[in-house]
């Protein structure tokens, strides 16, 4: 008879091992899925995980893409992980990402065609502010009216998507665009462009910001009082209250920070890789970042690695779509599966598996 026995502390070994086990499990299950779709599973897995980095033909193009995709994922996931640790569930990062991009782009476009070097920094600040403000809606409703932040933040994603559609058709539409939807292209306007900093690496300001966020979050969690309060609230909310942690303040900080980071990610995306505000600007980074945060064990370094891995599945997914005709939706299902496996094997880090009859206590 198999029993689970709660560990007094999560196992350190399994905390590190579970993501690896989960990735391997997902490869097997995903391979099965590709086989059912009539594709060679080994070839599909190799196309997703190996070819983007090492294939002679594509690697030159796809390797830089790794940082381009990982940047926003890591930036958003770092913010989310702080809240998730404290039991504050912001799952509307996609909305904050969109609103951040809209606000930042709006301010930028109002200054067009200024050539001042301050345009991009100003846009970044306003983008972060926009994301922050959008996240403050669930935060204030939570602290003031005890409203569930999960539902509010998620519902606001749909609102943000409508605003995005409206802005790209109306308010922010390119006046010289011949009536086509979408804003001016920021890449063609030097003062507002977020270009590739080192040619051939895919490194842009958003990636730099993501690395800074990783270091900042790591320092805060291990050295700073706020980080301690976040960790304490997550593991023992009552003890945290007795220790003088202000739960209202913590909710406001966690949601605010994650919103600001998501908004910044949106702004870096719109001025860089995406180039413009358009109806399909929201690409689901805000949702994938949730998987990244969990895959990285809510730990900054883990998130860095998880973000790179998830970026790889994006690029590999596109490649397998192009090479093998694997449908785009299969990659989405694949990413969802990864989260399933991760949550499933998580039991190993929190519980011991005992086989046999319970002993005498």
């Amino acid at each position, binding site marked *: 008879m198999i029993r689970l026995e709660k560990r007094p502390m999560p196992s350190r070994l399994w905390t590190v091992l579970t993501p690896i086990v989960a990735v391997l499990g997902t490869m097997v299950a995903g391979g099965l899925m590709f086989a059912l779709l009539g594709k060679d599973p080994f070839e599909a897995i190799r196309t997703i995980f190996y070819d983007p980095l090492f294939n002679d033909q594509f690697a030159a193009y796809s390797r830089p893409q790794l940082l381009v995709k990982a940047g926003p994922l890591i930036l958003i996931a770092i913010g989310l992980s702080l809240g998730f640790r404290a039991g504050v*569930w912001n799952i509307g990062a996609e909305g904050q990402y969109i609103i951040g991009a809209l606000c930042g782009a709006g301010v930028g476009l109002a200054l067009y065609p200024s050539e001042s070097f301050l345009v991009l920094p100003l846009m970044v600040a306003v983008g972060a502010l926009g994301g922050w403000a959008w996240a403050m809606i669930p935060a204030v409703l939570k602290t003031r009216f*005890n409203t*569930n932040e999960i*539902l509010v933040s998620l519902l606001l994603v749909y609102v943000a998507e409508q605003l995005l559609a409206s802005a790209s058709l109306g308010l922010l539409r390119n006046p010289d665009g011949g009536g086509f939807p979408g804003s001016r292209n920021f890449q063609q306007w030097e003062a507002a462009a977020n270009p590739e900093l080192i040619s051939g690496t895919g490194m842009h300001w958003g990636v730099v910001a993501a690395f800074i966020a990783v270091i900042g979050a790591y320092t805060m969690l291990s050295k700073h009082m706020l980080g301690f309060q976040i960790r304490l609230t997550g593991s023992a909310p009552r003890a945290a209250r007795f220790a003088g942690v202000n739960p209202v303040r913590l909710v406001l900080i966690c949601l605010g920070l994650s919103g600001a980071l998501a908004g910044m990610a949106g702004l870096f995306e719109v001025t860089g890789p995406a180039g413009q505000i358009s109806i399909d600007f929201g690409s689901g980074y805000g949702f994938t970042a*949730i998987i990244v945060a969990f895959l990285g064990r809510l730990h900054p370094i883990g998130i860095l690695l998880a973000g790179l891995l998830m970026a790889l599945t994006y690029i590999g997914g596109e490649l397998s779509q192009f090479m093998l005709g694997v449908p785009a*939706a299969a990659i989405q*299902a694949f990413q*969802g599966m990864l989260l399933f496996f991760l*949550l499933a094997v998580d039991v190993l880090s929190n519980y011991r598996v005992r086989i046999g009859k319970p002993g005498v206590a």
Partner: protein
Amino acid sequence: MAGISIELLLASLMVAATPILFAALGEMVVEKSGVLNLGVEGMMITGAICGFAVAVETGSPTLGFIGAALGGAGLSLIFAFLTQVLLSNQVATGLALTLFGLGFSALIGQGYVGIKPPATPDINFGAVSDIPFIGPVLLSHDVLVYLAIAMTAGVWAFLKFTRAGLILRAVGESHDAAHALGYKVVLIRSAAIVFGGALAGLGGAYVSLVRVPQWTEGMTAGAGWIALALVVFGAWRPWRVLLGAYLFGGITVLQLNLQAAGVRVPVELLSISPYLVTILVLVIMSSDRRRVAMNAPAALGRVFHASS
């Protein structure tokens, strides 16, 4: 405001409310057993495509709805296994269900874009449906509209009057006490989760087979999340959930009609109104802490691990 007929509005309100009513009822039973399943959206969209595919392949809407219920229940089994057996975090697992469901449904649905499903016939009430006003509003629908209402009554009676319903509520209030009394907490919760999945699947299929009716990716567009909010709105009581669903159905239909009538309100404002109203209602309902605490299952979202 000319061009909007009250009769048509009320009739389409009942149709618009049915999918969220199914999903919300199912989720209510799940939450009554102490489990928070945030994967409603994923189960709905899976039900939507399963129902659509089965109905198109077999030509029978009835089989389609059965397939949808099975599809939703199947997906919810993953949730049940992860949260009940492997003791995973319910919030995260529910999110995973939604993310996976959206991808999975898009994958199955590739071959079904642009196809018309077989029509679900309206029930023929005979001469009764000729009664002015009542006839076109209440008696001009397909069987699922009435099934949803019957299901509301059924869930209400089950929770209030049956022993099984009492046990389900006990498990949701205190799993440790229920376990000590010898009830199989994991089994009871799993059954509730599967029931919730089946109803969410039905709701999804109602969107793809009757309400729209065709298949597009992500077509449930947040209905699952609105259903989750409805459970809070209804304070975990079936008839209030029904009332809430009809209210939201009304808002949805009204804003669509206003868009079509070309009222001088920005289209975006009309499209976001169902979401904004949902948030507003959530705020109003949850601001009274005492009332929420009285009705919400005490063990909601907590992991059950039998230590002995």
